[in-house]
Structure formats: structure tokens, C-alpha cells
């Protein structure tokens, strides 16, 4: 499978602060990939690097086979981007914003974009600053989709929206990209959104990739097993244990064992995606300790 984004040892440093460090990952083409991690994990930095809005301090990044720094025109024409704050020109009307999209993008889909906004009941003659937060988010997404991108980068697309607006936005997103097979990389810290929309997952923490893979595969590989209390140091020493919680009489482990069965005396419990993600985020070393076979990355 080819990659829409491919990074090798990518790093970004602001002064002495590392925003992203030794980051090597592949974002598969034609999929909706979630970039998950706590605040400050480097998600925004990674997306801006992919858009050429930042330059890497070290390492390489290729977007659709091109360097965003050296060939900005080729990358920009094929990649849509919505920044975290969803900036728009507040004094532009919705129509002005669409006109901007038409003027500044050669592959602009005027009719489709208009239809998308009208369908959502967004008045075209209204000033952007008078739109609700949800409508502004819709307009931002429409602007990014209107350039008919091969790759769509969304930084927290549904954050700070009420549940209805969030659902509407994500539905819009899934509908729009399903038809064209657009690759999407979206950052989020809302696992529920990720579960609804995404089929591939990258966990980023403290500027490093903790885990990457297809969500279905990752769920198959990971198990929550509960059994008699075991020695915490033994659990910590086991490379397949992602996280361990020890109660008085029981130990609950999240383990990564492809096709593995629970050992005798242990039972398997349901493992939600949220538990899985949190296990890696709470325990950042786990990701680097579990050796991920090279072929598996981004597969």
C-alpha cells in the first residue's frame, strides 16, 4: 500500500523544546487516519509540517511523494487543510469565502461547495463572523474540500462544537471523502469521534509515535486480561504488556499478542478503543518498548 504521507526521523524543535522528535510514520492512502494524543503531543506540528507551514528541524517528510518545503505549489494544490482554530476572514461573506477558494485554487468545485453549504442551511450572503461556531466549522471544511484535495489534513475538526454540530460535521466529512476516496489525516483527542470516522490510528505522545496501525488490526492484537494478582515488576518486565493495573487480589493487563490466548486462570475482558489508546498514553514508554515489526507500520 502506498503512503500519502511518509516521514523519516522527522523532528521539529522550538528553541530547546521538541514539538516532534524522531517521528517516522506512514499515513496510508485512501484511508481516514486518526492522529491521537494529548495536548502538546505534536499533532498540530505534524500537520503543519505536512502542509509546508512549518519547516522540519531534522528529518524528512514527503506528502503525496513531494516535499512540502521544496515543491510547495505541487503539494498545496492537492492537499486541503483546516487549522485548529478554523481561521476564516471574519468580514468576508460566505460567498466571498467561496470566491476566495475559486480564485486561489485551480481545481475548485464551485457548484459542489455551494450545494454543500446550502444543504446545511448556511446563508451565502452572511458575514463569516455572524455564523455560529458549527457553521464556521462547516465552511472551513467546505473550503478545504472545495479544492478537491487528494489529501485532507484536519486539526481537531470537531473540537469546541456542540454534539449536534460535531455529528453533522463528521457526517459531512465521511460523506464527502467516501465518494472520491480522499485520504484524510485528522487529529483528535476525542476517541468517540475517532471510532465513528477513522479506520487507521496513529498515537502520538511527547513528540513521538507510540503506536500506528489499522484500528481493526490493533483491536485484534490487543487484549485485556484479568487474572490473579501478579508481581508488578514481572508485569513491567514483560515486553508484551502495554499497561498493568494491580488490585489487591487481581491484576488487569492490556497486552499485545497477535492471536494470543489468555494464559490459564486468566480471563479476557472487552477492550474498548478508548482503553487501548489510554493505555498507550498513560504509559508512554510502552509504545517504544513494544517492538512493532517494520512491515506492520502503516499497513
Amino acid at each position, binding site marked *: 500500500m502506498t503512503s500519502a504521507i511518509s516521514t523519516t526521523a522527522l523532528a521539529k524543535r522550538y528553541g530547546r523544546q521538541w514539538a516532534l522528535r524522531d517521528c517516522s510514520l506512514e499515513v496510508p492512502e485512501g484511508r481516514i487516519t486518526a492522529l491521537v494524543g494529548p495536548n502538546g503531543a505534536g499533532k498540530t506540528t505534524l500537520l503543519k509540517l505536512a502542509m509546508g507551514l512549518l519547516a522540519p528541524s531534522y528529518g524528512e517528510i514527503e506528502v503525496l511523494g513531494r516535499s512540502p518545503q521544496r515543491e510547495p505549489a505541487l503539494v498545496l494544490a492537492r492537499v486541503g*487543510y483546516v487549522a485548529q482554530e478554523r481561521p*476564516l476572514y471574519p468580514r468576508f461573506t460566505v460567498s*466571498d469565502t467561496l470566491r476566495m*477558494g475559486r480564485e486561489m485554487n485551480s481545481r475548485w468545485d464551485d457548484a459542489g461547495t455551494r450545494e454543500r453549504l446550502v444543504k446545511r442551511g448556511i446563508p451565502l450572503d452572511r458575514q463569516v463572523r455572524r455564523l455560529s461556531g458549527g457553521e464556521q466549522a462547516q465552511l472551513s471544511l467546505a473550503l478545504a474540500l472545495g479544492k478537491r484535495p487528494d489529501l485532507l489534513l484536519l486539526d481537531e475538526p470537531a473540537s469546541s462544537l456542540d454534539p449536534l454540530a460535531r455529528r453533522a460535521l463528521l457526517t459531512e466529512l465521511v460523506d464527502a471523502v467516501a465518494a472520491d476516496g480522499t485520504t484524510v489525516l485528522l487529529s483528535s483527542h476525542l476517541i468517540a469521534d475517532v471510532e465513528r470516522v477513522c479506520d487507521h490510528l496513529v498515537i502520538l505522545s511527547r513528540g513521538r509515535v507510540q503506536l500506528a496501525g489499522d484500528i481493526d488490526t490493533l483491536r485484534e492484537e490487543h487484549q485485556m486480561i484479568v487474572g490473579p494478582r501478579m508481581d508488578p515488576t514481572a508485569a513491567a518486565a514483560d515486553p508484551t504488556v502495554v499497561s498493568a493495573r494491580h488490585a489487591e487480589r487481581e491484576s488487569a493487563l492490556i497486552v499485545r499478542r497477535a492471536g494470543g490466548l489468555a494464559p490459564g486462570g486468566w480471563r479476557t475482558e472487552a477492550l474498548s478503543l478508548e482503553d487501548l489508546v489510554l493505555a498507550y498514553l498513560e504509559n508512554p514508554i510502552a509504545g517504544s518498548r513494544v517492538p512493532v515489526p517494520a512491515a506492520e507500520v502503516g499497513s
Partner: protein
Amino acid sequence: MVWMTWRQHRWEVALGLAVLVAFGGGVLLLTLLGWHLMGQIAGACPSTTPNPAASIAACADSTAEYQNGFQVGWQWVLIVGTAIPALAGVFVGAPLVARELEKGTHLVAWSQSVPRRRWFLARVGLVAGGAAAGAALLAAIGQGWFAMQRGTGDGLGGPSLWAGFEIGPPVVIAYVLFALALGVAMGAAIRRTVPAMAATLVGFVVVTVAVGGFARPHYLAPLTSRQSILGSFSSLVPSGSAPTSGPGFNLSSDWLVNLGIGNYTNAAGHPVSDATVNELLGQCNIPNDGGATTCPAAANGITQLLSYQPASRFWLFQGIEAAIFLVLAGALLALAYRLVMRLR
């Protein structure tokens, strides 16, 4: 980018035109006032000389009124004429990049298919073109005012070309482009709109005052001339009996760079001290009724060294000053371009 630039700057275009129209209207009003005062002078001052003593006072009054009004008007035109380029830098140049960065909208602009390089060059280029057109209009208004004043002010201290140096067409256009480039560069460096506006205003005033005050007199070495010290009384004598020009120097068309106070010689060519000159001038009798000023005989023949730039150098100096400011503008835009491309 043309539409985008127009959409983002259309209010500035409207406001700029309004300012120019107001300026042109003010200039026209001042001119009409000047003509009115001229009519009074013509009525009060008999055209033949020597003047009957009775009418001299009335003539002197209306002449003084015209000259005072003319002074105020001329200063007003010069101040506004040089303030407009500063306004262009502060209100158009400074926010151009700074407001985008401040509001985060650069992330929208720079994530469309137009690469950042083209975004910057097209936007700055179009705005600079518009500003240059506005500057040309401003220069035309200034020149119109100037021509009307010169046409009516003959013999009454009508302005020399040099008095309007700052609103000469090449210089005005260069000032506007410089102010704009300064604003864009300050905005890209400071990244905040209001501080960038303040820095632009301060920078523009400092640079224009420094160049005008220190560099301009020396674009070419000034010519020198010796002039009778009594010539400095000429403006008090309506009949113009005292000499206003020494050899080669003409007060009404040349730019007096330095009056050369302290560099006096007598008729024989020997140096005369400042104290002696002050004492002699203190003994001059200036009658209140408009009669001729009389000074001690010893004052006759004392001359001072003055340096000046002749009228023939005016357009050369305009070209030199315009070139200086265009080079500065180019350097500032190159800096702004580098800053914008490096913003990551």
C-alpha cells in the same frame, strides 16, 4: 490574487481616495482665499512707483496679510502632503502581513493552492501599484497648488520650487512606496498590527527627517555666494530696495542651505567679528511708517558667506532623493519577503 487583494483592501482604496479628495478640496479652498487676498492687495497698492505715502501702510497691511495667510497655507499643504505617505505606511502597509498573522488567517491564505511566494509578491505588488497611483494623484494636487501659488505670488515671495521639495512628484511617489514597504516589513517582523503601525510611523518620521535634514543639502556640494548683511532686511522693505541676491544667488528660486552666520568680511575682504556686526545692525533705524530702513554707513559693504543649491539642481535632487527612498523600499520589501518565507 487580484480579486483577493481587492477584497482585502477595497476599504483602504475608498478611504485613500476620500483623503485625496479632501486634500485637493482644501488646496483649492486655500487657493481661492489666496486669490481673494491678492485682489485686496491690487486694490490697496497702486501699481506705479513711487507710492504715495498715505497708501503705503494699507498696502503693507494687505501684503502682510497675504504673506501670513500664504505661510500658513503653504505649511498646511506641506504637512498634509508629507503626512499622507506616512498614513499609507501605517494603515495599509503595517496591517498587510501583521493582521493575517495576528488573526491566524495566514493559515487560510497559505493553505490554498497559491504558494506563499506568489501570495506575497502578488499582494504586495498590487498594493504598491495602487499606492503609487494614489501618490501620483497626490503629487498632481501638490503641483497644482504650487503652480497656482507661483502664478499669483510673483513679487510677493511666491514659493521657490525648493519649498515644495517633499511634495515634488518623484519624491512623493518614492515616499509612499517607502512608507508602504516599511509598514509591510515592520508587520512581518513584529507580527502584531498596532505595534507595527507605531513602529512604521516612528521609522518613517525618523528616516525622512534625517535624510531631509542631513543628507539632502549635500547630494551635491552647495554653491557659495557673498551677500550684503543688509539683504536680510529686504523682507521688511515693501519697495524691495535692499538687494535680495548676491552674485549667482537668487532668493526666490534657489535653496538657501546655510546663511553662514559668523563668516563676515568687510568691503576690503577682511574678517569682521560677530560682535561688530550685531552692534552695527542694532543701530539700524527701521521706521514704523514703512519708510526705508537706514543703517550706519559702516554696515555697507559687510558681506556674509552663504551656501545654496541653485534652482537648476531641483529635478536632479528630486531624482536622487527618490532613488534613495526607492532603494530603501526595495531593501525593506526584500526583508519582508524573507521574513514571510521564513515564518514557520
